[in-house]
């Protein structure tokens, strides 16, 4: 997450007044970018991964682990490390070294929303040379090593999605009292967020716009000794510091749910995100559409989030918690009150699965689109007047139904078409599971697509495996011209399914039966093909959309259906792609270990991190079968995660997730 310019942010009532203004300037900036770059062609495949860490701090003597809030100190240390700078690394927001002439520049580090988080990216983007792919895992390990070296001896950068006891007393170091003016959370202090003015403002204005605190409620896992109905014992009903303290007295914390009330509970989660550069805008739009249906499948397959606020949850992934943690919808937009002041009811949070397909692909049937999609018709009209086609205009006019949350006074003086600040204001606060990214103005960078649903994994081996798998899938999609379209509302349904405990083994997901054309394709290459007279020039009218897809297990989607004409499986598709490429034996062997991990996660041989963590808790001597994840368990769990990060299962710990490999 890059930081936008510093300035004076408007408080919500003021920001609200200028929302339309920011939106219309954002649309003008988008049109300017689109006009300049729509013809950009033949960009190479470049891609990057982002690894996010939690910084934990061990208190060995008391067998306690806390989140360290020293993000700023760690970044300062990274930004001033002469050796790191000389190798081309650093902190882009502060300073980085010159990468010119450095074949393998050092990684770079970024702040994140949580003050206990750190993000690291490679020093230069990856290409598609297969040997490049093998640099990914060592680079991820290098990043963690560098991060670790700039921390205190008691600290460690860990890749768990969430800190198991975040929101409990005495889980932060240094510690601060909760109930600050920005978040008004009864569980976490304002100091939990990155102090850059953008972040507290974001949190405060979301709360303000919403008219109450965010409500992040996760169903609690019911174990043998879990009291039922279960009432979250950490909720304080007698707090009277802020008007929002009434929320819990007004039913914000229902029975049988773990209750959380601040952006930090969601945006403090660590994810594994991959961004690809497309050859041109069309290829980018194709990748956006074709990767969309894979989102929920990869979410289920990377599930790693079974604990919140010291309790076992009944779900396995982070997604909906982040969604609720930044949900700025008003009661009217949520449908709780009749529409009076607001413009429409909004079925989804700003952080949600995506709701549009954007390609001009003839295979995109109108039945795949959401008939109830909310769009800002005026802005769409403006985009179309400006020359944009309907599909893309609809997409952006859909993103622009939201209000800008953080508006800097200084930016409102005049419209600057050489900047993208207003456009990015809305674009980057629409957190959907795919993001379609126009080129940054004035750069050589092309149109990009970001794949956002995956959960961070405990080891760099796994993170490399999933990153590389997604890269290879995109190459297979483009090479075989694969078609994964299903109605977008089914993708949203799948996203919900992915939350269910052990969805990877227990659930089925809507998926397209065949990624290939229904009829043998006509000879599409070469103009002026002379087809025999009796040959249909177009495939026959397609049948009902409902016949194109069915429910499949993750195993069937990843490894293929064991029946004639069944879905071939993403891994066999990737292998078929690799068989068409010149890959050297050592590279192929390493790629095979990555694909093998994914194959075995999908078929249940290996456990997801969520399943492993759940098992770790439930078999811990301190666990009382009451859903409570104590300090003691958390300490051992985080220690175990650190050990797995280092040993990768070689010593037996975590072998259920990783196998006894290499």
């Amino acid at each position, binding site marked *: 997450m890059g930081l936008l310019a510093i300035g004076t942010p408007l408080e919500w009532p003021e920001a609200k007044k200028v929302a339309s203004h920011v939106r219309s300037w954002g649309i003008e900036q988008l049109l300017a970018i689109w006009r300049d770059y729509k013809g950009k062609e*033949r960009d*190479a*495949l470049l891609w990057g991964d982002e690894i996010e860490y939690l910084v934990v701090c061990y208190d060995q003597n008391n067998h306690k682990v806390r989140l360290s809030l020293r993000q700023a100190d760690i970044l300062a240390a990274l930004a001033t490390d002469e050796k790191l700078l000389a190798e081309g690394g650093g902190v882009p927001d502060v300073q980085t070294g010159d990468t010119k002439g450095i074949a393998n520049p050092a990684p770079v580090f970024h702040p994140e929303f949580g003050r206990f988080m750190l993000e690291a990216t490679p020093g230069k983007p990856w*290409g*598609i040379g297969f040997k490049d792919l093998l640099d990914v895992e060592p680079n991820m390990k290098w990043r963690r090593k560098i991060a670790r070296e700039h921390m205190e001896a008691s600290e460690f950068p860990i890749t768990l999605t969430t800190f198991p006891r975040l929101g409990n007393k005495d889980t932060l170091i240094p510690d601060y009292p909760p109930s600050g003016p920005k978040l008004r959370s009864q569980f976490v202090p304002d100091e939990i967020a990155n102090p850059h003015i953008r972040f507290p403002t974001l949190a405060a204005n979301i709360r303000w716009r919403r008219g109450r605190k965010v409500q992040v409620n996760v169903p609690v896992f019911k174990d043998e000794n879990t009291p039922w109905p279960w009432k979250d014992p950490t909720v304080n009903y007698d707090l009277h510091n802020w008007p929002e303290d009434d929320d819990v007295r007004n039913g914000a914390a229902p029975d049988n749910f773990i209750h959380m009330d601040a952006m930090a509970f969601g945006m403090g989660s660590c994810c594994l995100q991959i961004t690809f550069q497309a*050859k041109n805008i069309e290829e980018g739009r194709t990748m956006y559409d074709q990767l969309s249906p894979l989102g929920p499948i990869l979410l289920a397959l990377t599930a790693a989030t079974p604990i919140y606020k010291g309790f076992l949850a009944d779900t396995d992934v982070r997604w909906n918690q982040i969604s609720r943690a930044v949900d700025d919808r008003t009661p009217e937009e949520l449908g709780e009150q009749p529409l009076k002041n607001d413009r429409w009811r909004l079925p989804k949070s700003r952080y949600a699965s995506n709701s549009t397909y954007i390609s001009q692909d003839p295979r995109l049937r109108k039945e795949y689109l959401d008939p109830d999609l909310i769009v800002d018709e005026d802005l769409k009209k403006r985009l179309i007047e400006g020359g944009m086609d309907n599909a893309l205009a609809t997409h952006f006019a859909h993103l622009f139904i939201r209000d800008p949350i953080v508006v800097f006074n200084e930016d409102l003086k005049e419209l600057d078409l050489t900047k993208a600040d207003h456009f990015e204001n809305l674009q980057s606060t629409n957190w959907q599971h795919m993001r379609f990214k126009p080129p940054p103005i004035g750069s050589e960078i092309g149109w990009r697509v970001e794949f956002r649903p995956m959960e961070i994994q405990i080891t760099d081996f796994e993170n490399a495996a999933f990153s590389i798998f997604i890269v290879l899938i995109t*190459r297979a999609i*483009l*090479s*075989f*011209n694969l078609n994964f379209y299903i109605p977008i509302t089914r993708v949203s349904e799948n996203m919900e399914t992915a939350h269910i405990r052990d969805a990877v083994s227990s659930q089925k997901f809507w998926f397209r039966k*065949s990624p*290939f*054309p229904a009829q*043998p*394709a*006509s*000879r*599409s*290459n*070469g103009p002026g*093909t*002379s*087809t*025999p007279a*009796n*040959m*249909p020039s177009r495939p026959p009218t397609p049948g009902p959309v409902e016949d194109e897809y069915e429910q499949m297990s993750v195993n069937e989607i990843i490894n*293929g259906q*064991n029946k*004639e*004409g069944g879905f*071939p499986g993403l*891994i*066999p598709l990737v*292998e*078929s*792609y*690799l*068989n*068409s*490429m*010149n*890959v*050297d*034996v*050592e590279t*192929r*062997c390493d790629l*095979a*270990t990555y*694909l*093998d991990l994914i*194959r*075995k996660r999908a*078929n249940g*041989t290996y456990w997801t991190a969520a399943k492993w963590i759940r098992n770790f808790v439930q078999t811990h001597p301190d666990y009382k079968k009451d859903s409570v994840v104590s300090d003691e368990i958390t300490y051992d769990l985080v220690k175990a995660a650190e050990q797995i990060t280092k040993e990768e299962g070689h010593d037996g710990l975590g072998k259920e997730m990783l*196998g*006894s*490999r290499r």
Partner: protein
Amino acid sequence: MKLVLSTSNIMSGGPSVMRRPFFEKSNTELTSSLRSNFTNQQGSPTQSGPSYKSWTTQADGALYIPTHEPSPLTEPRESYDITVKLFYLPNIPADRRCAQTREAIELVLKELGSKSIDLLIVSFPGISFDADDEDSDLEDPPSAPQSTSEGCDESEVPPEDIETMAATWKTLETLHSEGLVSKLGIAEFGVARLQKFLEHTAIRPSVNQINVRDCCVVPKPLILYAKQQQIELLTHNDCTNILPRGTLRQILGSGENGSGVLASESNKDGLRGDVAPQWVVKYTAVVKDRGVVENKGYFAVAELRE
């Protein structure tokens, strides 16, 4: 008469590019993509099928099945890596290979609208790679149905001697010096064969292709030797015996899955004679900096003898 069978671009052709690990042998990519291209060109497959003459073309003493239409590459030549793999077939006199090689390359260059290829790999009949039986270090071997060569039919002939291969190699060296081919390669050579072979080469192979089944158990000596000789070991999943006896007869015949080119009881109109396969060539054009396979296909050439 010569028969030139082609698949056209199989990348967008759908299922035929996918091996179905559960049902099919691995060398079906060629045969199923030939079939699917024929069906495609014949039009409606439900009727008894039009005469082969409507979808094939006779020119220069050859019958093109189906009528061949080139699909030239869309981007400038330097964007691509073009790899061609030529399969010499068993029981064909080696002295024909010079002409066969040129013919194969010409067909590929015409198909792709290109003037040169980057890598030409030749596959000699009868060779199959034997990884040493050393135990793998892997306690937990990959579960992949990766293995492909067990799906291949047994080789019909023993490998030929080094001198014959070396004679063929001379042809390839000529193509290289003419600038038609930038790099040369071989397939399935173990250390011993490779050592002997290298003594006979003026232009050394840059590539030795090994079946992917063995990619994690390729013997260390071969890896070291290849490194030392600067020969890149690449993976593939082709059968050396790419066109088992009788396959073409089936594809061209009038039975089930046949295309009705050859005469039969029900197809008096068809061609008569014995089909003798001569060679098979596979080509792949990859957009280098995007890793996208833009065009991949096969030509198979046979003699029809009255």
